[in-house]
């Protein structure tokens, strides 16, 4: 039988994969996508708990997370699009004009 542990484990693994993606990639778009992955891993956990408690709250928060993800994607991509006008590549470690 599937137990809560399964969901938690899956969530943790996906989260770590996402985190690893954020940490090691230089391409900003992929970093953004990795963040989406991290957010989704939280969704998995929430849904798992929702199932655990037989309660809707987890799903409600999953919906909020999707909302936040959508907002994040919109703003993040807008930033990237405007960044892309000035420079060819979208490597995060090259975007350092504001550094001290």
């Amino acid at each position, binding site marked *: 039988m599937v137990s809560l542990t399964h969901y938690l484990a899956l969530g943790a693994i996906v989260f770590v*994969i996402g985190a690893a993606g954020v940490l*090691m990639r*230089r391409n900003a778009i992929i970093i953004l996508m990795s963040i989406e992955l991290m957010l989704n891993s939280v969704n998995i956990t929430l849904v798992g708990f929702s199932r655990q408690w037989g309660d809707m709250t987890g799903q409600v928060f999953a919906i909020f997370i999707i909302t936040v993800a959508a907002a994040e994607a919109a703003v993040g991509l807008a930033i990237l699009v405007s960044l892309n006008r000035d420079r060819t590549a979208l490597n995060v470690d090259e975007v350092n004009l504001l550094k001290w």
Partner: protein
Amino acid sequence: MELLFFYMFSAGIIGASLLMVTRANVIHAALLLVLTFFFMSGIFILAGAEFLAVVQVLLYAGGIMVLYLFSIMLMNVEVSVRLRQYHRQSFFAVAASLILIFEVWTVLGRGGSYPAFKGFSWQLGATPGNVEALGSVLYTKYLFPFEVASILLLAAMIGAIVLAKRTIDR
């Protein structure tokens, strides 16, 4: 049966997301992410969250990822394919990630033995209800957070427009 599907979907998720994280081509990464989301919605259906599963497809796959694809196409992707893909710290990052997974694994494995979890049932309950139940919770108890979320979306929308708009020369 359920367990079988769960493992299938989990394998899909993990595999696709690993591929996504490592692709050099952004388009491929995005498509793999979509695939990941499909598997995830499968997981959601298994957990009885039908509505969430559909939302996952509709919003994530059908909405957000299209936005990604759209943006990617607006940018120049060929250049970045040929550049160095990984960050200087990636070795440490991978190492830390692996250790973290190991640690989580250990924690979960030792699950019930912690005093805080005494008497905690790790077995899943019944599926928690249908769309109607979700709606009634969302629009009553969580109405205020819901409105806040809508304001957030509005702000994000305006922000995105402002950021992406080209300044028009007089």
